[in-house]
């Protein structure tokens, strides 16, 4: 997951690598996603999120649709 200065920079980077564009997040969405994902990682009680918990976190951050689908198919 990279940070880009603007949409134009993402387009240029994608074209140069012949890659389709992926999905974009605002830094605020990135912070909320990272916070939900990692805030407990150093704590003794940490455990991996379940699939359902991860889906809930993505939805809370506004990341919905096929790109964010965690399940097969």
């Amino acid at each position: 997951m990279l940070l880009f200065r603007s949409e134009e920079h993402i387009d240029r980077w994608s074209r140069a690598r012949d890659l389709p564009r992926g999905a974009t997040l605002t830094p605020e969405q990135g912070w909320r996603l990272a916070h939900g994902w990692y805030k407990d990682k150093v704590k003794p009680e940490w455990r991996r999120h379940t699939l359902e918990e991860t889906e809930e976190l993505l939805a809370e951050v506004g990341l919905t649709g096929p790109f964010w689908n965690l399940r097969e198919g």
Partner: protein
Amino acid sequence: MTAAESASSEALMREVRLHIFQQAAETARVPQPPQIAAALQRAEADVVLAVKQLAAGKVLILAPNDGNIWAANPFCAVPSGFRVEAGDKTYWGICIWDALGICAALDRDAVISAPCGDCGEAMRLEVRQGRLGHSEGIIHFAVPAHHWWDNIGYT
């Protein structure tokens, strides 16, 4: 494996996990199996096995072709372009998500410096009192969520 052996293996994995992540957070350095074994007074072979089990469980990421830890994500073991300054320590993340994740895991004020993936120009993001303050740029995920762990290095 007997039930007792399984419980012992689970206990060592937990002990190793806690040591790795607490050391990474406190010192900004990710310990490797020899240091972990010495600190925990455990056989290195047992620690290496525990680290491999943690990697298999996607708790951390091993460097390609050796048993060293590449990232106890969000903490990267080697310098990267995604730099996090917190207090008097410098941490590295393997991507912008992990750089933000370091700020979340540390739960302290921090400043991220990260390059534009296209032109390399540095950008700055700040986390203050649990909130994102100053920020620049747009985050791009090239890989759909279902395929993140197909090749986590690329992701």
